[in-house]
């Protein structure tokens, strides 16, 4: 999810580079297997290389650095327990620099010159879409840790964040259950909010909920007086917020100043996690709702251990959030798949993937072998005065991933 569209032309150019790289790699190791599917992963020693590809510079660094931190924690813990399939993990870190084309280049470098067994990272949808052809071309593995707009399923990508039916749809179910009869949609003007709102509109129509307005603000928009005026005038039961980044601060300040409250008209946000609460200001957010699959406050021994280990490594003032947990979990899931397959080869790992389960901080997650997403429990949370998010409602069991919303009759017209 998050931030602007990719550059298809450059991606196409990178495709050819990727193909070149893959074949060069095959020949250098003298592997007997041929073609672009050949892997040059070196499994002869007692270590195996994996790649972490996050933006450590540029606008996305704020968010992606936290994901990189939790990936490093996971690797440290796995190594302390003896590694994966008897081999210690050796980490190669690359900076995606908040640029989709750089993500594609670095992914190619990790696969073909570092010969890593799997790559973990990516955040924006545009970075994922730029990397997708690289991973498919080289038949390598990417673990992508962020909730996104769905409508994708690559055999070479494992999606450990939520797809729409594990975040947006449960949030709507929750609002419906609470008796909300009308919605106002506010979002940033790019692919994720527009796709999300299409789904919300279809859901609303099928469930007798009235959508009283739909407003988009350009990314980086800082003046929400007019949009909040429209929200106020429309008098909807709740606001569904898919704004991104700085806009959230301006929106919530305006919302509060206009006299709108969480009691009278709650705002459900899908991109405000623990990391963002501080920047928006706890005062402006108290009582508002969020939809995720993990909160720092999740009450389980696994999560307690995760939060404690994270704070011990990075400082007690740090918080843990959904994308951080999803990336932390992704490394354990990959390790479980490799252990099950007894092999690091992508094809073997993919075969072993289906049904692989792990006790994650968010609860039990299971990999879906068909669409490579994972079954997760949906959690609706409420921002507390302590700046943390507390679970208000949770789905009775983990929700099977359905990236194309095939199991929802009302969504029939969406994926076409």
């Amino acid at each position, binding site marked *: 999810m998050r931030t602007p569209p990719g550059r298809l032309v450059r991606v196409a150019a990178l495709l050819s580079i990727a193909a070149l790289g893959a074949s060069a790699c095959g020949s250098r190791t003298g592997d007997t297997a041929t073609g672009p599917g050949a892997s040059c992963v070196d499994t002869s020693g007692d270590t195996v290389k994996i790649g972490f590809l996050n933006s450590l510079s540029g606008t996305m660094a704020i968010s992606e650095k936290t994901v990189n931190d939790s990936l490093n924690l996971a690797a440290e813990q796995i190594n302390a327990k003896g590694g994966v399939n008897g081999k210690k993990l050796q980490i190669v870190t690359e900076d995606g620099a908040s640029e989709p084309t750089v993500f594609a280049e670095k992914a190619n470098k990790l696969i073909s010159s570092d010969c890593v067994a799997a790559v973990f990272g990516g955040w924006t949808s545009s970075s994922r879409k730029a990397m997708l052809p690289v991973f498919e071309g080289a038949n390598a593995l990417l673990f992508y840790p962020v909730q996104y707009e769905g409508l994708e399923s690559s055999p070479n990508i494992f999606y450990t964040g939520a797809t729409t039916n594990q975040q947006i749809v449960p949030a709507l179910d929750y609002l419906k259950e609470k008796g909300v009869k009308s919605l106002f949609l506010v979002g940033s003007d790019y692919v994720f909010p527009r796709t999300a709102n299409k789904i919300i509109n279809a859901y609303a129509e099928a469930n007798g909920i009235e959508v009283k307005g739909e*407003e*988009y603000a350009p990314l980086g928009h*800082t*003046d929400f007086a007019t949009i909040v005026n429209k929200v106020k005038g429309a008098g909807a039961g709740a606001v569904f917020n898919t704004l991104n980044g700085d806009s959230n601060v*301006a929106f919530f*300040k305006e919302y509060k100043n206009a006299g709108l409250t969480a009691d009278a008209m709650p705002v459900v946000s899908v991109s405000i996690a623990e990391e963002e609460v501080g920047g928006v200001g706890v005062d402006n957010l108290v009582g508002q709702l969020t939809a995720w699959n993990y909160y720092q406050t999740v009450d389980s021994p696994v999560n307690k251990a995760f939060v404690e280990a994270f704070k011990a490594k990075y400082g007690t003032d740090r918080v843990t959030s959904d994308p951080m947990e999803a990336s932390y979990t992704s490394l354990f899931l990959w390790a479980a798949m490799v252990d099950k397959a007894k092999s690091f080869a992508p094809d073997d790992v993919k075969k072993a993937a289906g049904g692989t389960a792990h006790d994650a901080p968010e609860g039990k997650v299971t990999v879906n072998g068909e669409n490579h997403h994972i079954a997760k429990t949906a959690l609706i949370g409420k921002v507390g005065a302590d700046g943390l998010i507390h679970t208000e409602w949770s789905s009775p069991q983990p929700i099977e991933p359905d990236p194309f919303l095939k199991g929802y009759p009302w969504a029939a017209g969406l994926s076409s």
Partner: protein
Amino acid sequence: MEALFGQLFAGLSLGSVLLLAALGLALTFGQMGVINMAHGEFMMAGAYTAFVVQGVIADAGIALVVSIPLGFGIGGLLGLLLELTLIHRMYNRPLDTLLVTWGVALILQQVARDVFGAPNVDVRSPSWLSGSVDLGVAEVPASRLFILVLSVVAVGGLALVLTKTPLGRRIRGVVQNRDLAETAGISTRGTDRLTFFIGSGLAGIAGVALTLLGSTGPTLGTNYIVDAFLVVVAGGIGQIKGTVIAAFGLGILQAAFEYSTTASIAKVAVFAVVVVFLQIRPQGIFSIRTRSLA
């Protein structure tokens, strides 16, 4: 009816924000002809001043009152430093100034990132500025009313300085004819430095005010710099009253377009209006009559 007045106020408020952001530029760009891309970062410095002051003074209300003059000082000092070290060397090279100050802007953003961290920081609003005020015809957010008043005070203060004080006379003299002013015994260097100090200081005040409305982060300034230049250009170089009219005009226009269409379309429409306007009147709303060649 309530919506109409609400929208009218939203426009005025947006105009006052634009005015605060552009007022300093009207001096440094409008009067001195310096294209200072780091102007937005002086606003950012003002916003962080408000953040730091809140760390020292717990009461958000007192902190805000203290932050405004302090923000002026910090912004002004940064501007003075920039003028002394770099800008005065390139008064006749506008393109170079643009590139150099842009570089300075990037450096200042990174400094902010290193000092305060990349995520946004939270500047709390005083209790007397959260919530709304009933003006009879519409309920308006108190913080926006405060910024509206602040911008009017800032413009009034600046106008007073420019028209009634010896410093103001010197500034106007240097703008209208630098050589003649120098011949008359005015230190143009000293005047330049003071003008730049005041202009940058106003950016600092704008930054403090903006913490009431939006996010406080390293890139705060970049959100406003283009709009600020737009206001100064549309208003006419060298005329404060042009800047005032352009700021409120564009604010009301943006709010009206945004209400009837969408935020994205409104942005495009406002740009289009300014482009067409500048085709018809390239000198902006007001132009200064001058005998200097600059």
